[in-house]
């Protein structure tokens, strides 16, 4: 009779696996079903956006940065615009700030809905995905309304917004908010006390507060582990200090804690949206009044020579940004996000670097899955909400 022997098995998960959220590749070493080590391999989606941005004019970078983290387009463009505006030394109007807050919070709900849908589906709750995408559709309709583009509106521009809010915007957002409160309860009915969901998530993929800090996970993952840090509270921007909202935290640091934190964040975002919407007048100033940066309205371009020249200059040469560097953090759906922007005083950026919260989450993934079961790897990847476009850029 041959001697019984055991050996560990190396399994290649991804890059094309339906639950790796794009193209994440994990080399897992397994002892039976237990994960002994995990080595994430990334870079399959690297498109050199940072290098491309150096060849573009300042305003042309916005569509590029929106495509980095493709689930939080408006947060990206807001972070980029704020860094450039800091270098320009301009102060944007109050109304634009409120609109940006509203759009950023809608984007957060949008991103969390995709996360909840895909995460739910991966742990077996397929109907959650359909429910979440139903409500996300309404948010995409709002994007289509303001910019004609559903995923990457490029609506935020350096110096303000591309154009004024469309007619019917307030009604559309209000209709969404009125509907969404009840729908969020519906999702919670499906998951929060669902026995199967609890068994798949409680105590799974936990990360300690110390590790969350050491691995730089500023965002929902750290908040689920007890780090009460939110850029909107710690370093307020866009007038967030004048809004009334809470920062939800949890202490367990496991998949379930991350779920509760994100669901609570959606409720807080709804509160913020209502407050911001009440402050926004249907029409008004939508960009700074600076002829170097803001193109004139179209009706003036067609009737006035000076406006036509100004329009031509802005669209052919762009504008110059004073030399210097700036990094303005914002709280994106995945955590602290920002663009380290360096200018050499010309009309093109010298360097654009995105702080990618997904990259750090991906790095810490190993800490969360080693020692667990292979089936839990899926639940953990879903719960850290990585966007591979943000990891690889």
């Amino acid at each position, binding site marked *: 009779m041959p001697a019984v022997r055991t050996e560990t098995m190396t399994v290649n998960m991804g890059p094309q696996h339906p639950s790796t959220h794009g193209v994440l590749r994990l080399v897992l070493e397994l002892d039976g079903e237990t994960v002994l080590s995990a080595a994430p391999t990334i870079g399959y989606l690297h498109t050199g956006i940072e290098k491309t941005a150096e060849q573009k004019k300042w305003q042309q970078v916005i569509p590029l940065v929106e495509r980095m983290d493709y689930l939080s387009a408006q947060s990206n463009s807001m972070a980029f615009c704020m860094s450039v505006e800091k270098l320009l030394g301009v102060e944007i109007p109050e109304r634009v700030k409120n609109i940006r807050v509203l759009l950023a919070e809608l984007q957060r709900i949008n991103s969390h809905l995709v996360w909840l849908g895909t995460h739910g589906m991966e742990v077996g709750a397929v109907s959650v995905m359909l429910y979440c995408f139903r409500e996300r559709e309404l948010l995409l309709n709002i994007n289509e309304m303001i910019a004609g583009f559903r995923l990457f509106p490029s609506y935020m521009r350096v110096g303000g917004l591309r154009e004024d809010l469309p007619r019917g915007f307030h009604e559309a957002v209000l209709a969404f908010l009125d509907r969404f409160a009840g729908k969020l309860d519906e999702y919670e009915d499906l998951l929060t006390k669902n026995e199967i969901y609890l068994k798949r998530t409680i105590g799974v993929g936990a990360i300690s507060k110390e590790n969350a800090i050491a691995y730089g996970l*500023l965002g929902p993952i750290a908040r689920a582990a007890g780090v009460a840090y939110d850029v909107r509270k710690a370093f307020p921007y866009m007038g967030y200090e004048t809004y009334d909202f809470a920062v939800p935290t949890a202490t367990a640091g496991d998949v379930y804690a991350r779920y509760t934190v994100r669901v609570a964040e959606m409720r807080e975002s709804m509160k913020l949206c209502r407050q911001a919407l009440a402050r926004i007048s249907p029409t008004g100033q939508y960009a700074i009044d600076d002829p170097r940066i803001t193109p004139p309205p179209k009706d003036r371009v067609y009737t006035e020579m000076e406006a036509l020249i100004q329009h031509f200059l802005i669209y052919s040469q762009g504008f110059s940004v004073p030399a210097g560097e700036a990094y303005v953090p914002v709280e994106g759906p995945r955590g602290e996000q920002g663009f380290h922007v360096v200018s050499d005083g010309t009309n093109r950026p010298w360097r654009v670097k995105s702080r990618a919260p997904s990259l750090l989450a991906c790095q810490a993934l190993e800490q969360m899955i080693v020692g667990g079961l292979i089936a839990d790897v899926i639940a953990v990847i879903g719960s850290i909400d990585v966007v591979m476009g943000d990891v690889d850029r």
Partner: protein
Amino acid sequence: MDSSALIDLLEGAVPGVFEAVASVDLQTTVYVPRERVVEIAQALRDRPELGFEFLAEVTAVDYWPREPRFELVYVLVSIEHRRRLRLKVRLPGADPHVATVSGIWPAANWLEREVWDMFGIAFDGHPDPRRLLMPEDWDGFPLRKDFPVQIRRPAYAAEPLQVTEQEFRQNVQRDRLSRQGHEG
């Protein structure tokens, strides 16, 4: 943000290494000499009055053809004191290397790998000094300013790796052992 108070604190912690410069944003900006990065990083994290326990970002900027060519940027956050600091290191173009801080902030591991990948700045003592995003056989460092853009290059593929079954098993085994040693 009271940057002068923070600079006084920094001077108190490690005297005579910080060169403060003006900044337009939240971050107080200081230059430090590259030989003392690890010592300074340790003090920044461990001294309670500084408490920069979060490393938010490591990146680099290439100022080619100026010398010193590279500037390495660390963005640090102290949650407790609600402060931010931008630590910068100047590096010469001929010999860009600096000691790793991944022993102090584990988050630096991949961030430094990305800087190596994109700029060719070496991190001495890094536990895993490989490329992060580009293919491993990539030639050159794409985010350097003298790396050409918008050129046509014939497509190429690396020679397929020819190994025997036995060599393959040995490679897997060696990889495992090295990773276990790295963790332990």
